[in-house]
């Protein structure tokens, strides 16, 4: 029986490998797309894509890896990772990659996804850091991107007051160097639309500059980074910068995959640390990660009665287009230092985090009542402890976080493989209203994890290869007021999704999501009372291949929005995607034509859009009209790729598009983008 399986799997994988050689990017693109479909709108996946692209070239050796490294492959669940190590511990090193099939919880889909990124062979022994090796065996990856909105928006006209001081062009330049798994370096600069290109005020010479040099795996010094880096530990409650998965149809996403210290190579202008950090192995199974960071952040400055300069919120957008945005740029300095201690064995991981954050300006809570428990002062110390423990088919995880002299927060959960075809997740959380933390990405309904209690439960059922079913339900309570919610409130969210894949080239997905929350009434009353706000999404999607080169995707999505006693309003979206990617051609392309009609912004719809490599877009479909885009990729030479994109909105029956400085006369808004990648 087992032999048969291996043979079967072998054939599948051989076919897979042959295809993979000619279509390396397509594979990652598909994977990212399937992950993106399961995410909220605001995630930046470029870092994930970066990692996967890297592993494609430098596969992880499954016989010589660790949980931290495997967690970066986000499609592996913590339970699978734990089972793999348990299997190796019991049976010795993997001899054949097909052995994965015999490890509990490794289904065919997971193995197929995993294959391109792993190996069992010891990579080239050539990993000594010498000048010659660095030059000869290093990998260089250079990306240059240009884009702009073609129509001129109001902000670029000669307005008397606030206007965009720079040009509407967007530039990105990114250079990355890696040598084996020993050295990594990067340099990124970015100019957003409306910003000065070169030597503008407060920029030397570009608006956003980021870079790092990292040395990895040198004896006890596991990681050492100078420059920009990210820190991701535990359940994202105490110390986590950047992107974290949360509630999504991938129900295991609420168990965070912490990857510790990592060099930062993204163009996001907010979510990183700047300074020096290291991970040192100080004893068997014990790692220490000390770090120091000094950064300038954007914030609007006020002066209080005592003449002190004060700040109430940090601006995270990284946009410096108008005079006031430029004035706010780099107005506040932040110093963070601290460390993380981790003890790790196959089944048990325990970590302790402590760090101190200080600012050169004083924080004052905003004047609204809902803000009264916000952080005040200049200094903050955070401590936390996290754990994960695998027992049989249970994976327990959790974290406690405490802001000294302020609130407490904790989150605990379990991931259970109930049977080979069914897994379940439960998660309980309680974040106090005065839990202050500037690096908190824990699972929450709100965008930040404080002032919230909740219980989440999810089920994932794969009865056979053809069907896969996911559910989750989440009930949450906000003990204190929130923005536009003038009383304690609660709500719930439920999602159900069914995938049917009868053949390799055909897939149907149905998804239903409902969310009920409370919000201030829209009526003008002396004291706002709360209205129920209900938002329901219905989605049906078909993906099918016409031939080896052409595949199609169709989607219909309906949103229903209802607030209080008002009538429900609806939004609709229907689109057709066409994807052309012939096996051995230099050219690949895809395009979308979409029709959307939403009653208002409340019933808007988001959908993932294909874009040039490393750029991620979730299209916002709001109003009534047509949306279309086309992407083209062409392999100019062996190591040189070029991408082009043209996208447009054509709204029905409007005189202008957008609002404020982004307003464009007419009913069209179109955008183009060109990108070049050179790998050497």
């Amino acid at each position, binding site marked *: 029986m087992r032999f048969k399986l291996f043979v079967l799997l072998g054939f599948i994988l051989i076919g897979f490998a042959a295809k993979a050689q000619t279509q390396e990017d397509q594979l990652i693109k598909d994977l990212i797309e399937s992950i993106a479909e399961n995410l909220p709108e605001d995630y930046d996946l470029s870092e994930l894509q970066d990692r996967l692209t890297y592993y494609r070239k430098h596969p992880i050796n499954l016989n010589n890896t660790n949980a931290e490294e495997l967690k970066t492959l986000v499609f592996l669940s913590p339970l699978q990772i734990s089972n793999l190590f348990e299997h190796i511990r019991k049976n010795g090193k993997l001899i054949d990659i097909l052995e994965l099939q015999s490890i509990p919880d490794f289904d065919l889909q997971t193995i197929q996804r995993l294959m391109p990124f792993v190996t069992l062979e010891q990579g080239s022994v050539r990993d000594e850091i010498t000048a010659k090796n660095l030059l000869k065996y290093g990998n260089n990856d250079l990306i240059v991107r240009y884009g702009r909105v073609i129509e001129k928006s109001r902000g670029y006209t000669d307005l008397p007051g606030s206007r965009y001081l720079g040009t509407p062009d967007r530039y990105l330049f990114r250079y990355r160097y890696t040598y084996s798994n020993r050295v990594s370096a990067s340099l990124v600069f970015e100019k957003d639309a409306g910003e000065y290109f070169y030597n503008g005020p407060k920029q030397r010479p570009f608006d956003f500059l980021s870079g790092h040099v990292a040395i990895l795996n040198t004896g006890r010094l596991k990681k050492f980074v100078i420059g920009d880096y990210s820190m991701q530990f535990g359940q994202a409650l105490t110390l986590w910068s950047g992107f974290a998965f949360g509630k999504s149809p991938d129900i295991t996403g609420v168990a965070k995959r912490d990857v510790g210290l990592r060099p930062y190579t993204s163009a996001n202008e907010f979510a990183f640390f700047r300074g020096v950090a290291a991970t040192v192995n100080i004893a068997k199974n014990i790692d220490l990660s000390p770090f120091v960071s000094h950064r300038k952040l954007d914030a609007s400055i006020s002066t209080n009665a005592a003449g002190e300069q004060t700040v109430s919120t940090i601006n995270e957008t990284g946009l410096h287009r108008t005079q006031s945005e430029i004035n706010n740029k780099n107005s506040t300095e932040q110093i963070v230092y601290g460390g993380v201690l981790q003890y790790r064995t196959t089944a048990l991981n325990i970590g302790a985090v402590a760090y101190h954050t200080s600012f050169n300006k004083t924080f004052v809570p905003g004047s609204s009542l809902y803000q009264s428990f916000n952080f005040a002062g200049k200094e903050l110390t955070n401590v936390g402890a996290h754990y994960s423990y695998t027992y049989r088919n249970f994976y327990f995880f959790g974290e406690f976080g405490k802001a000294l002299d302020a609130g407490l927060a904790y989150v605990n959960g379990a991931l259970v493989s109930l049977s080979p075809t069914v897994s379940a997740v439960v998660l309980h959380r309680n974040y106090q209203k005065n839990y202050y933390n500037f690096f908190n990405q824990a699972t929450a309904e709100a965008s930040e994890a404080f002032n919230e209690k909740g219980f989440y439960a999810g089920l994932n*059922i794969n009865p056979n290869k053809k069907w896969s079913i996911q559910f989750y339900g989440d009930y949450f309570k906000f003990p204190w007021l929130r923005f536009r919610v003038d009383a304690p409130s609660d709500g719930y969210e439920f999602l159900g999704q069914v995938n049917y894949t009868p053949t390799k080239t055909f897939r149907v997905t149905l998804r239903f999501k409902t969310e009920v929350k409370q919000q201030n009434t829209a009526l003008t009353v002396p004291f706002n009372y709360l209205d129920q706000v209900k938002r329901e999404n219905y989605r049906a999607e078909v993906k099918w291949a016409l031939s080896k080169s052409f595949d199609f995707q169709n989607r219909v999505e309906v949103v229903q929005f209802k607030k209080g006693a008002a009538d429900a309003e609806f939004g609709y979206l229907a689109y057709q995607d066409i994807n052309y990617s012939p096996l051995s051609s230099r050219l690949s392309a895809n395009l979308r034509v979409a029709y959307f009609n939403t009653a208002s912004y409340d019933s808007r719809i988001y959908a993932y859009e294909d874009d040039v490599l490393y750029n991620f877009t979730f299209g916002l479909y709001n109003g009534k009209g047509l949306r279309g885009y086309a992407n083209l990729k062409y392999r100019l030479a062996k190591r040189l790729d070029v991408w082009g994109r043209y996208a447009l909105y054509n709204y029905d029956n409007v005189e202008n598009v957008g609002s404020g400085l982004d307003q464009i006369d007419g009913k069209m808004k179109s955008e183009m983008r060109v990108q070049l990648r050179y790998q050497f």
Partner: protein
Amino acid sequence: MRKLLLFITISFLANSSYAQYNQGARLTGMGKASAAVNDIWSLNANPAGITGQKSPIAALNYARYLFGEELSEQSFAFVLPFNNNFAGVSVNRYGINEFNEIKAGFALAKQFGEQLSIGVKANLHQVKITNYGSATTFSVDAGLNYALSKQIGLGLYVNNPSSQSYKATNVATYIPTAIHLGATYMPTNKLILATTVTKDFEQKFDVNIGVDYKFYDMLSLRGGISAKPFKQYVGVGLNYQKLVMDIAVESHPQIGYTPQIGLSYAF
């Protein structure tokens, strides 16, 4: 004053979310996704579900509503299998001393081969208010279970299809008329996933989803959710030889937690 408040709350509950009678701690722990699940307390859900019992079994269940000190629900059930037939009796009492509702019923179920079983139940309802009087009426429940495969089971049942109500015009309590359609998926003999869709003629669709997972031979873990209103359920079951103890907690956004405990003994 407090009594009055409690009374209003009870009547409110009796009229809306608690229109269904208690289904015992096991089914409650599974989010009441009970239409296709076999249990002794199927007596209060799909009567065809009692055909899962191998030997005579008796059960007691007690639920406590935490917002009122006296408000509780007590239930008793007994099922007797003979040949491929099953007979069952259940009695439920819900309320406080001054106000209570009683539902007592007698069920008959029969297995037709391996796959199909059918059950019917006749109920006697009584609502009684001290110093005010009482009212009585009858209703019928009927249901069937069908095993589609070893792993997948389907269940369908109706409560009170003839829309019986209390004859007394001054009793507002109504007997719900509802149809329930459910399915179970049992990938292994340790795991039951269950779902039930309910349409009460007076209310919106409700969807229940639940899990029963036999962690050890002695210990089962359960959980579930239901949609309208959004409720969460957890439960554990302990069994020792012929004795089973089940505990469940139901969490309602307004009412809070309702714990219950049940004991059953198979002879």
